[in-house]
């Protein structure tokens, strides 16, 4: 009986073992990968930070209070999140193309540690692509995925940033070598990197105008155009979609101020119009990245709460006529309701509020996501 030596295994076909060597472009290279990786690191951290701002503005922890100023803080942070994210698409695709030969390295796993490292890279690649694909679909209102976008985008962000830290720790020496040494070859890296930056620039130039109004006419590939919509302002959810057309038009509509107040108030639209009116120029800054200014006119929320005798430190809940939906109500913390710019608006850009902008009455406050600017308000509850 002849025993086969345990160490001799059938050799894999050469087409598998030699695959990485067959990629002929010299741009599949450590320096290119490192420069793109560093740029991606900056971009991902910026997206993570601005994403967390948006998340915690909408779901504030009990100990935190967001300031109501600067007025445009959320507008800028969410614009950076979305437009910056879109402009990062070429960076990510270029980086993955650069390191693509490593996907086919042989043997696929050399050791347990190597296997874990590759798993972390898979988490980074899968997570990054997931964030970009769902993000791009979401701002185009194409809900092709069977889960709630915000929840999925939020939790996946932790996986991406975690995997990014693991990967950065692992690749640190290469990044260091790239920054600290001069290449001695004539590979055209600069042209390639400039091309990638230029592609990001084209995407940013054709979309940024949806948040930065002076560039609105250039935003030919943005899902929104400032100035387009009823009364010159885009609408995210129409009265018809929210199912409030009839109750919002009902002449019997009343605004009630209730809860922990000294005097409950019940006001008709004419009662509200008889109160001191103020104008505030404030943006609708949508979580989807677009934003546009409007000149709102109405009653200061703090005047109304003073009339009702609400305690100074109270939180306020604004309720819409909508029957359901996660954005039916919104919370207004003291820094926001005490701000003189925070209005229950009755008019926009010189006209009575359009039905799709929240007629008869809507909340508008500075430095706050659009989904929390509750429309078709009928109750103000002091908690």
């Amino acid at each position, binding site marked *: 009986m002849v025993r086969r030596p345990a160490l001799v295994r059938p050799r894999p076909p050469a087409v598998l073992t030699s695959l990485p060597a067959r990629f002929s472009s010299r741009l599949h290279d450590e320096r290119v990968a490192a420069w793109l990786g560093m740029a991606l690191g900056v971009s991902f951290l910026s997206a993570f930070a601005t994403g967390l701002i948006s998340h915690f503005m909408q779901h504030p922890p009990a100990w935190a209070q967001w300031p109501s100023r600067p007025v445009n803080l959320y507008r800028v942070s969410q614009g950076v999140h979305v437009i910056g994210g879109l402009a990062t698409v070429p960076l990510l695709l270029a980086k993955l193309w650069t390191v693509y030969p490593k996907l086919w390295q042989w043997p696929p796993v050399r050791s347990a540690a190597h296997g874990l490292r590759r798993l972390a890279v898979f988490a980074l690649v899968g997570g990054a692509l997931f964030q970009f694909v769902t993000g791009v679909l979401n701002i185009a209102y194409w809900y092709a995925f069977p889960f709630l976008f915000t929840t999925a985008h939020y939790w996946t962000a932790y996986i991406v940033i975690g995997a990014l830290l*693991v990967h950065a720790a692992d690749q640190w020496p290469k990044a260091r070598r790239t920054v600290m040494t001069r290449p001695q070859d004539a590979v055209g890296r600069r042209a390639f990197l400039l091309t990638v930056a230029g592609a990001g620039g084209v995407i940013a130039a054709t979309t940024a105008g949806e948040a930065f109004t002076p560039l609105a006419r250039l935003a030919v590939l943005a899902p929104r155009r400032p100035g387009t919509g009823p009364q010159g302002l885009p609408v995210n959810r129409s009265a018809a979609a929210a199912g409030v057309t009839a109750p919002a038009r009902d002449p019997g509509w009343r605004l009630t101020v209730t809860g922990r107040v000294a005097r409950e108030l019940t006001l008709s639209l004419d009662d509200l119009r008889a109160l001191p009116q103020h104008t505030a120029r404030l943006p609708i800054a949508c979580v989807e990245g677009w934003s546009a200014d409007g000149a709102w006119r109405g009653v200061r929320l703090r005047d109304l709460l003073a009339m009702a005798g609400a305690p100074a430190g109270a939180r306020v809940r604004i309720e819409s006529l909508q029957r359901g939906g996660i954005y039916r109500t919104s919370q207004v913390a003291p820094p926001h309701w005490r701000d003189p710019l925070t209005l229950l608006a009755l008019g926009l850009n010189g006209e009575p509020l359009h039905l799709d902008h929240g007629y008869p009455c809507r909340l508008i406050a500075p430095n706050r996501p659009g989904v929390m600017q509750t429309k078709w308000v009928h109750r103000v509850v002091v908690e």
Partner: protein
Amino acid sequence: MTAAGLALIAVGVRGVVTDLDAAAWLAWFAGAAILHDGVLVPVVLAAGLATRRLPAASRRVVHAALITAACTTAVALPLVLGRGRRADEPSRLPLPYDRNLAIVLAAITVAAAAAIAARAIAARRQGRSRPADRGRT
């Protein structure tokens, strides 16, 4: 840094498992990576091979134009397809995105053609003004 990274991954995975349909999430997570590695990159590599016959001087410009055009198209495609349009919200996706994308792609093509022409003219001028250099390429 590695420990912090692993902790963040654990936070994310816990959130996915508790708050989401994890199987559907995983299908999109892994699906995106598989489609990218199995379809998108091979298509890009094939496009790279197809441009091999071009003269070296114009090849780089063509690559730059293709990269820019492809990335712009990828980001604009959901707008062009317009699946998110709603009749009661005309301010959502209000532009003719198919026409706009065509204009942007045409502009990229024109810019690339101009760059190739400018290079060719510069090369010819250089050749004429410095005859001693001729044949030294």
